[in-house]
């Protein structure tokens, strides 16, 4: 459904997008996971035809985007990262306007408006001006405006930014349902959990490049089968007990250590090393391989909310 090859966009010296290639199949949710400034928005802008790439090609549903998109735009729904709505108009009036640009009118436009308003549970506030909405409510209307015309492809740029957990779960549900009905979704986020729980395939992007791409399981394999064990207690970094085989220190400071363990069994012998040295252990946390680890390993960065 979406084919991207060698996509590049520089802003002066900033390599916002630096040679991206990926493909998204119909009905798939493809996640872009990356920190601030990774190039997610720039990529979405090029996919939607707003920005002209410096190099590379984009093909959407078999149509080249190089000529500005043309027909491809009418089958796409875009949910921009920044809320782009008329504050003076009500939620309903906004949706009427954005829907009409996609050829909706009359009864059909009213029905679709009601449908999306209902979907984000904003029917009762639909006639208030958007300027009087809370941030989360605006974001929900922002989402609606991209879905009102039942697009075949949805590009969502961090659609859950600054939204409460309940509304967030609701939005993820909506996106999931859209995909189930055959809609192709590109979803950018810097929330690991969202990417993990929502996306069929994930591209880890940083500094304009894709560092890894695949299903969650495929990505996790990249960091191996190792678990991360985090220990806190009363110990000093320079007087750490000897470690069993297959265990290494990832990070250590006075009172806290992060260890990479190949085999769960090693945790026991490690702890007995602590006890026999008379060191106090307060907490032990074992985490299985996850996206966080992958991300850390690939980019050397930790994603924070």
């Amino acid at each position, binding site marked *: 459904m979406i084919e991207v090859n060698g996509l590049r966009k520089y802003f002066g010296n900033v390599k916002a997008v630096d040679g991206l290639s990926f493909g998204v199949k119909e009905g798939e949710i493809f996640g872009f996971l990356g920190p601030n400034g990774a190039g997610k928005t720039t990529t979405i802008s090029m996919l939607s*035809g707003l920005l002209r790439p410096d190099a590379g090609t984009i093909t959407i549903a078999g149509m080249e985007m190089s000529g500005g998109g043309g027909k491809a*735009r*009418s089958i*796409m729904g875009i949910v921009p990262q920044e809320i782009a709505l008329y504050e003076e*108009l009500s939620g309903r009036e906004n949706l009427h306007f954005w829907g009409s*640009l996609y050829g909706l009118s009359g009864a059909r436009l009213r029905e679709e408006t009601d449908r999306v308003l209902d979907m984000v549970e904003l029917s009762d506030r639909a006639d208030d001006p958007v300027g009087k909405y809370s941030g989360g409510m605006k974001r929900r209307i922002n989402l609606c405006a991209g879905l009102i015309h039942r697009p075949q492809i949805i590009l969502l740029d961090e659609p859950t930014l600054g939204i409460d957990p309940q509304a967030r779960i609701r939005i993820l549900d909506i996106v999931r349902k859209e995909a189930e009905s055959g809609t192709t979704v590109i979803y950018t986020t810097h929330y690991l959990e969202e990417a993990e729980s929502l996306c069929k395939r994930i591209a880890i992007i940083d500094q304009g490049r894709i560092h890894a791409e695949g299903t969650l399981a495929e990505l996790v394999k990249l960091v191996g089968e190792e678990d991360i064990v985090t220990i806190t207690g009363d110990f000093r970094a320079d007087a750490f007990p000897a470690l069993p085989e297959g265990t290494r220190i990832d990070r250590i400071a006075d009172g806290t250590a992060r260890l990479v363990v190949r085999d769960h069994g090693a945790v026991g012998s490690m702890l007995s090393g602590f006890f026999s040295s008379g060191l106090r252990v307060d907490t032990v946390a074992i985490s299985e391989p996850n996206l966080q680890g992958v991300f850390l390993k690939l980019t050397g960065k930790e994603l924070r909310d």
Partner: protein
Amino acid sequence: MNRSGSAWLVSRIALCDFRLTWKDRSVIIWSLLMPFVFIFVFGQIKGGGSPSDVKATLTIENHDDGPVSKALLASLGRENLALVFEIPEGGEAVRSLVIPEDFSEKVLSREKTRLVLRKDEGSNSEAGQTAEVAVARALVKTVSALLEIEGGIIREGNGPISMEGDSLSGNLWITLENRPDGAAALEADLDSIIARAPVITVASSFAGKAREIPRGYQSSVPGNLVMFVLMGMAFSGIVITQERRAGILARTAVSPARKRDIVAGKLAGRMMVGIVQILVLLVAGRFIFKISLGNDVAALVILMVAFAFCCGAFSLVFGSLFGNPDQVAGFAIVTTLVMSALGGCWWPLEVVPQPFRIVAFCLPTGWTMDGIHKLISFGYGLGSVAAHILVLVLFGAAFLAVASARLKLAR
């Protein structure tokens, strides 16, 4: 309508813009209410009412007591003038008509003579023109009365005037010299002709240079209309910068609407706002301020649409050259005021020195004001403003070209 075609998209964008504009209460105040205040104040300062209400004073210095000067004064008395025959002690006449001693004699014997209309340098030039027109009209009346009398004498035969071949011989002065009651008889004849309702009404509006300068509301309605429409449009450039900042332009740009649809939609929306504003002010001008809209309302409508097009494109220039709403506001106020002043919105172009008239015709405001007055104040038709309409459309096209080239849709 094809719901994915350009016309559909342009109309959606235009209607949305139009609706949004009126949601802002300050727009209603600035584009509809303020002009009324300005029209009223300017109209009062500039004399109020319609031009025919003005009575120019004319001091008469008559050194001739012959029948012709009496007839001339009689017809001047029928003009819309305040005649003054004595200059008050220590006063000075602003405007006076000097009738020389031998005026009647010279006229009756068909010799050259000279009437002098003196105008004080600082005097009201509009009144001066009114007086000039009135004197000319009175002269025409007097002379035609004389001709009529002469014609009668020739027909009767044996008079002091006769036709010999192609030429006239003799003159009326001889009659006056020879017959003691001649002067009285001639006076009576002249009086009756002048007093009689004219068989042919001499057209009382003078074409060309001798026209009256629009004043009062006739001047303040179009002046403020042009200024406030232009100002409203220039300020609406702010909306474009705000929509760019809010990502609304970008969102529109990723919809099926292309850049040219967006430009056309924004232009059409602004034109609609401008046309509403123009309509309200013209209708108010006609029915509240009682101004004349001229003889060719259709031409006025076409001229106003061209003006709205030009202003709409002007607004897009502001929205595309600047990224910051404050910059737009600053430039909008300065350019609007300068263009209004130089374009003749504040005072008639008829009274400014020639170089300023040239400047005025480098500006769309100058062309608009001149065109409006041609139609509503001087009674011309479409043909006389064809050039004005064309120039406004060309200005608009130039503005549109700049705006389309410079308009950035992405944030």
